[in-house]
């Protein structure tokens, strides 16, 4: 018994020495260290913009300064049609992305599991992904007329392949030892997918969803400029009208909105999921 107790103590000592020490930083300090590089970047961008305007390169009715554009954005933010437009656009984005996620995931699932499918359409998926979504619009308008369906169709074609490819590469990059471990433990069929393959492929899949979102947002913006539906205000419609009215400040304010929504979705939604996945697996360094 005495030797057993020594053994336990040895183990405990080794474990204590081996376990990593987690340095805990206060929440506000962490937020500040994440925020200041961004604030600095924004300040630099605004300053550069202002300098270009001051240089007199273009007249201010063509290239207004940041102050004018931001105050214009402020008035937009008090305008109810602006919010209607944003909500229509976001609705399309979410519907289109959800549809793309479902179809892309099914496609990725099928291709990752079947050698024949992969040989047949594996490179086609990547080909589709490299195709600029705007090239699909003439066809989409021909088939679906100027309708919501035309926009959704192009979003799905833009985002679906990226999501499928993400899942496929996620599955391809699973360390074989994990699959072997799963097999040895008795994982078969659906249980193997649910408990081993899918979680192991998750980092790649999340990256694919993130790309998919970027493609969906780009396709949607292109679509809203081309497919104008009566009595459906949208960010694209407002951009186009600002352009037709030669309203440079309004146009740039809208572009800032497009940029902001894109960044917010990418950072807040997908960035958060990605960080969570990476933290759980120890793939995040202390600074991230």
């Amino acid at each position: 018994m005495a030797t057993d107790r020594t053994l336990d103590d040895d183990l405990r000592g080794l474990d204590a020495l081996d376990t990593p020490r987690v340095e805990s930083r206060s929440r506000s300090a962490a937020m500040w260290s994440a925020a200041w590089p961004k604030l600095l970047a924004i300040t630099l961008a605004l300053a550069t913009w202002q300098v270009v305007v001051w240089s007199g390169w273009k007249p201010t009715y063509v290239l207004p300064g940041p102050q004018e554009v931001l105050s214009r954005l402020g008035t937009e933010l008090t305008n109810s049609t602006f919010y209607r437009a944003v909500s229509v656009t976001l609705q399309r984005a979410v519907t289109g992305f959800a549809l793309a996620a479902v179809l892309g995931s099914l496609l990725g699932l099928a291709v990752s599991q079947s050698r024949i499918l992969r040989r047949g359409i594996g490179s086609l998926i990547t080909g589709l992904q490299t195709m600029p979504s705007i090239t699909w619009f003439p066809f989409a308008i021909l088939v679906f007329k100027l309708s919501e369906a035309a926009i959704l169709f192009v979003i799905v074609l833009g985002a679906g392949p990226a999501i499928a490819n993400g899942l496929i590469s996620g599955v391809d990059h699973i360390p074989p030892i994990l699959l072997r471990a799963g097999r040895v433990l008795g994982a078969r069929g659906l249980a193997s997918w649910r408990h081993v393959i899918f979680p192991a492929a998750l980092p790649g899949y999340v990256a694919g969803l993130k790309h998919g979102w970027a493609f969906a947002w780009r396709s949607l913006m292109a679509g809203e400029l081309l497919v104008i539906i009566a009595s459906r205000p949208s960010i694209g419609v407002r951009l186009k009208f600002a352009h037709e009215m030669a309203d440079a400040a309004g146009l740039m304010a809208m572009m800032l909105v497009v940029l902001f929504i894109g960044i917010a979705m990418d950072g807040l939604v997908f960035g958060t999921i990605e960080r969570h996945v990476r933290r759980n697996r120890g793939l995040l360094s202390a600074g991230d």
Partner: protein
Amino acid sequence: MTSTPLAASKRTSPTGGGAVVIHDVSKTYGDGRSSVAALDNVTLSVAEGEFVCLLGASGCGKSTLLNLIAGIYHIDQGTIDTGSHRVGLIFQEPALFPWLTAEQNVDMAMQFRAVPRVQRHARTAELLALVNLDAFGTWRPHQLSGGMQQRVALARALAQDADILLMDEPFGALDAMTRDVLHDEFERIWQASGLTVLFVTHNVREAVRLGDRVVLLSSRPGRVVAEFAVDIPRPRRIDSQPVAELAATITTSLREEVRRHGH
């Protein structure tokens, strides 16, 4: 000298029962001129509760043999009988699922066998306590050291209710200090559980430290060339005189085996 080569000692007959009975097994990879014979007419029997160490240089097919017993590879020729035993396999890497905590990793092994949740809970706690990791149940693999991860892997293998444990150089990647402690730990668990263990290693002292019997395999193709019964009383120490002496004897045989390939 507390042991003799097994030719002069007891030898369990391959037909006389045992937890694992390997009879005349051969395995070849590839075909035609590029084929490689990994195992050639291997016959070996492991008794119930016995701890057998498989020892050999590179290319002796040690890992192949374990994979055949575990049913991961198909056997070309011969038979392997494990009766109604459940076989667990531990690799050199812990191969834990990195997205699960230590607890969940152990639990998963039972989930695959559809063990009811309540039972799984109790058994997980029990197994983590057995490997002295009860305080680390909610930790994730990347937060644990290599030795701790390997102990979780051991708990996970035991969670399969395995009564035969196949171990493929499980302590090979650990530092010497941790390895020594884990030898003691694993010996204790083995003695308490009555497991049958087939342990692959290329470390002669480790084989003598742990095994009831050390089986020496030749290389390319793998073939049983000698067996050594280890009659040194337990608990043993890896740096003790008798362990060192037997290890020296076995090393001599191993070297002879390796030298044959130099010509």
